[in-house]
């Protein structure tokens, strides 16, 4: 049976991956079962809760609604791809400091949604943060600390870009 299934190629967190699976298998299940990347969670299986959010070709998607055939050839980023070189991503640091994660089950999806937001809007207003995270449900926090975490990460980005600028200016001098 499995020999009849096509092979799908996806780049996940910068690594080339292949999976020979039914074309309608959910991207969520391919990530979790075939690629053993269990950081991405299932909360509802119908695109309401956002726990399974991943970034696909620069867009935020609910991986429970994406059949793997639609992801063939795509670049996917999951929560496992946020930290780099053993250092937490700024969002992961601020979620830790500000209490943005409680039970942690919505956290991977929430981080991906926040990363997506900041990628397109590095300094969002609170209203923009609310809108950007509206597809991700958190039952623990009441969202206040998640907003704070995103604001802090945006400030961190600002600080970082200021530092880079001053370093560049220093270099230029």
């Amino acid at each position, binding site marked *: 049976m499995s020999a009849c299934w096509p092979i799908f190629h996806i780049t996940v967190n910068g690594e080339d991956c292949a999976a020979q699976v039914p074309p309608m298998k959910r991207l969520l299940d391919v990530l979790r079962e075939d690629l053993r990347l269990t950081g991405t969670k299932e909360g509802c299986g119908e695109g309401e809760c956002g726990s399974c959010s991943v970034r696909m070709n620069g867009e935020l998607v609910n991986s429970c609604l994406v059949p793997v055939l639609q992801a063939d050839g795509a670049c996917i980023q999951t929560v496992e791809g946020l930290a780099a070189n053993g250092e937490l991503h700024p969002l992961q640091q601020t979620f830790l400091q500000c209490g943005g994660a409680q039970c*942690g089950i919505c956290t991977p999806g929430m981080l991906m949604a926040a990363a997506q937001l900041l990628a397109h809007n590095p300094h969002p207003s609170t209203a923009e943060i609310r809108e950007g995270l509206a597809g991700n449900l958190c039952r623990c926090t009441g969202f*206040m600390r998640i907003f704070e975490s995103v604001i802090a990460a945006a400030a961190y980005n600002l600080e970082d870009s200021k530092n880079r600028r001053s370093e560049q200016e220093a270099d230029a001098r």
Partner: protein
Amino acid sequence: MSTHATTRIVGAPVPRKEGVDKLLGRARYVDDMEREGMGYGTTVRSAIPRGLIRSIGFDPHIDWSGFTIVTAADIPGKNHIQLIVADQPCLADGKVNHCEEAIVLLAHASKQQLREAVAAIHIEYDPLPPVFTIEESERQDVIVWGTDNCFKSFLLEKGDVDSAWSGAAHIVEGEYRTGAQEHLYIENNGVIAEHSAENGVTVWGSLQCPYYVHKSLMAVFDLPEDKVRVIQTETGGAFGGKEDYPSILAAHAALLAYKSGHPVKMVYDRMEDLAATTKRHPSRIRHRTALDRNGKLLAMDIEIATDGGAYSTLSSTVLSRATLHASGPYVCPNVRVRSRSWATNAVPYGAFRGFGAPQAIFAMERQMDEIAATLGIDRIELRCRNFLHDGDTTATEQAMREPVILDQLMDRALVESNYHARHAQFARENQGNPIKRGLGIAAFYHGSGFTGSGERTLNSLAGVDVTSEGKVRVLVSSTEFGQGTNTVLTQIAAEAIGLDMIDVIMAPADTGIVPNSGPTVASRTAMVVGRLIERAGLQLVAKLREHVALGECFSCAEFFAACEAYRAACGSVVSLCRYEPPPGIFWDDQKYRGEAYPAFAWSVQVAQVAVDTVTYSAEVEEFWAVQEAGRVLNPVLAAGQIEGGVAQGIGYALYEKVVLRNGRVANNQMTNYIMPTAEDVPPIHVYFEEIPFQHGGYGAKGIGELPHDGPAPAILNAIKDATGVSFHSIPLLPEDMFAALAAHHPVEEATTA
């Protein structure tokens, strides 16, 4: 004395202990785990609310040889779920009492095969008449449980209520209703079970109370303590929803593992979890209140009825807490609370954050606003005239021996919310405006820990040991499911011993390793278990000083060297402490009199609500929560508890409706069971007043449930303030407001063009 000493770690915003694992996506929840040779399990459930099972048929088109099939006949021990009363079968045997009741279990190596197999099992029933409402159950025309449909009743009496009415200047009556509420933890219920003749049953799962599951499995399998092992995995939210239900699911998976000889994973999908697991008890609460001409309470006669669903589960203890919170944070010489929990053919209701208190407080705090309106007294003034103070007694005649600072909490809430200025502003702006804004208040307490003699019965044991790798381990069965158990208990251990956070770890919540520190419920962990860890830490240091001459001041290295010296001399390095009730505690379980709780946490909340008289929608625009819950052990986690509880309370009031059709949840999806999103939750302002409680862990009292108690009445009081219309039941959706608001705010005010 530790409560007044300066602390290094307790009180600091220490990051969540398991936070990095959660943020990296490497925390292991049950669905992230696999066992060698593991298969999958599923449940075949009742399609009817009540009836006899005539036959169970297996469609011959399916090859059943690859399936493990379990029915009640396969249970080696007792066919019941051991909780308070053993009335709930593990698997239905001959009859069903609610929709979704488990009848047959199936396991197979392939998940995909299971769905088709469930559809190929045909169960035929002889239906019996069902009961769906409190009123039908009370009428007792149809008896669906016991001899009278009543799971439990309480009578609490103080003074002489009946003789108080004649001398009253005012009598105010009201009836209030609350609906079911789904926990909606984002991780559904799930377990993995294994069985072997040698080791008995082992279960890993998403759960709150490992020893509840342990006890239940012992009965179902007729096994001794040491042949059952329960291990909590990282748990993605619980809120009470994983207090009682995991005992059922664990038994199901373990039966499949037992019969199949392989490990079995059962993880519900959202639709199954929403349809088949417990929810908050619906309630109907009636108040009759007598007051003198100054608005002082003379008598309260309160009647509580809850819908318990088809089996008793925790209905008696939920009712107990509702009874003990029914008369609010007020002094009243004459109080009577009559409460009953009724059986219906709904899916059994169970524990949910607040545990009966949100229902009782909704009624009490709505009633206070109704009283204020009837008497023409300001609602703040009315509350302040009747607040409990130090030395006063509650309805159970419990004297307030700790400071009670309700006036201070009220003042702070009014100042922080800029209440009076806002109120005046809304009164002006509401004129001729289709958007009406209002403010609402709720004042309340929440009893910390188990009720009455509960903590003494639990007799919790907890402590610390020292590993050979040089870490102190906290030994508790108290579980982490987002509320911060790991962090605050390691903070307490580090503080008590004099170590840093990095030197202290949590032992796995595994009944094979940790003692029974009681269930992780009832806002008891920081206060009760925290105190045990504080004592155990201090006791360990004292032991090391006595036996291996640990110095007055010591470094981390000196401490662990002393531990190794102790280990060489005396064996393992362990310090355990057992619960000791605070002195002078008295509780009469028959008369419901005495010290109902070891301590109370107090709160005043203010909600600002805007009601659109065109669309009939109500939006909470801002929220203030002021509380005294003893010492705050970790300000970030504590504020997170308050904010999360308030958000759930907002959902309870305005969004979350469980629609039942013939006893079946009709909206068992996140698409149609609606909780507040990032765009719905208003700014929530949180303030703590701290009065350390001398019998709590570093002065802590319970905090987790408190914030859920107040939002619903505060919001409905704000809607009354905004529109002049009183609503008496929740959830309050636009369609529920439509008729009353349309009558009160005629269309011309609302026209825009």
